């Protein structure tokens, strides 16, 4: 067993510097690495490129990095729900590279898997394909997309063990598994960190080989963006 546990976010983010490229897991505010983001805010590193499906909301998630003007470029598929984001983008302070969601996931997965490039139909004939190689396979047109390269991946899992193995919960899984091992250093924060051997080897979503540092996070807020409910049958109102 190779021991991956570090004490906290501060220790886990050793080596993080301005100008770096990060991957950050999560979809909306679901499954985001809350502790790593807080530590990035505290460190005050600037000029960052962030690969993340979304950009948080004004006062939570990646929005916190945007407030401190720490981000130079976002690579995302959808960036709504964030006024400060909009302001920085329209003023030209912030560069935004919009990428189809499936392509974004596959570019992470390609980096994890040592695949330098692949073909996808997504974006063919649109401005996303501009400047990219296109090609026909079996009568259909595809765009060549290349693997991402990043310095750190920050992911959030439900349970983990000291060997770095990870298990995710519900739709908080999303981009987190495909970002593991997709950067030079992968930092995983978990809600519950267990001794190696505690998890069923059949049920591990991401083996520890893809994770360099793991720690048990604290104070998870797990904010809900769109609280949608239905009434209980027979309840009042």
């Amino acid at each position: 067993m190779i021991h991956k546990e570090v004490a906290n976010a501060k220790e886990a983010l050793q080596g993080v510097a301005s100008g770096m490229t990060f991957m950050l897991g999560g979809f909306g505010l679901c499954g985001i690495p809350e502790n790593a983001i807080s530590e990035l805010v505290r460190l005050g590193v600037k000029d960052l490129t962030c690969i993340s499906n979304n950009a948080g909301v004004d006062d939570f998630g990646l929005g916190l990095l945007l407030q401190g003007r720490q981000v130079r470029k976002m690579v995302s598929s959808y960036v709504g729900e964030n006024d400060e984001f909009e302001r920085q983008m329209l003023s030209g302070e912030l560069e935004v590279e919009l990428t189809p969601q499936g392509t974004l996931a596959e570019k992470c997965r390609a980096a994890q898997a040592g695949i330098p490039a692949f073909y996808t139909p997504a974006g063919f004939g649109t401005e996303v394909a501009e400047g990219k190689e296109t090609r026909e396979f079996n009568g259909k047109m595809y765009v060549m997309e290349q693997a991402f390269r990043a310095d750190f991946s920050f992911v959030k899992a439900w349970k983990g063990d000291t060997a770095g193995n990870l298990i995710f919960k519900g739709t908080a899984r999303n981009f987190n598994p495909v970002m593991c091992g997709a950067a030079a250093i992968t930092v995983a924060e978990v809600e519950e960190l267990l001794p190696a051997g505690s998890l069923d080897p059949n049920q591990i979503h991401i083996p520890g080989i893809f994770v360099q540092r793991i720690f048990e996070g604290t104070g998870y807020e797990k904010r809900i963006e769109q609280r949608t409910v239905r009434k209980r049958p027979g309840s009042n109102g």
Partner: protein
Amino acid sequence: MLDKNGIAQRIAKEVKDGYYVNLGIGIPTLVANFVRDDIQVEFQSENGVLGMGPFPFEGEEDADLINAGKQTITTLPGASFFDSALSFSMIRGQHVDLTILGAMEVADNGDIANWKIPGKMVKGMGGAMDLVASAENIIVAMMHTNKAGQSKLLKQCTLPLTGVGCVRKVVTNLAVLEVTDDGFLLLERAPGVSVDEIRKATLGRLVVPDTVPEMQL
């Protein structure tokens, strides 16, 4: 003329037994409410869940359980969770049988534009480009005209494209149309809507058969 629920209700008739269906945000989300309950259907959400159920009861929301619209949801027996790569394997690999999504414009060759208005804040395409480029069966749910009363069914899209030649069917507040080599084939009229009204509201090539039945909802 249909309202949004009417459009959703009409589209629900396109959902067949055994279909895996991806519903976009807006009118498409409403489709789930109208699917017959004697057929087997599973809803996929591209953020990583198959087998979505209704919204949770108050107090049972789980922050770790949302759909692609970031709404809290529940799951039904047989559901599964997966990562974003496998989710788009389902979509790109054409394992999802039907994709229903909204649009700003549809051209009579099947081109679709639904993600960007130049000069306005661009939020991004999310999974829409993957969905339209991959799905074999795409139905667009939208109003026939925009708020200014201009047709959204065009000869050519004026907005930046989301995908080319991919839309198969369009269901609007006025009509059901199929995209053919000759343009939009008018299949059905909304209740109380005349062929002439549809003709006036459609800028793209429109093929009108001898008889155009009224929709059965």
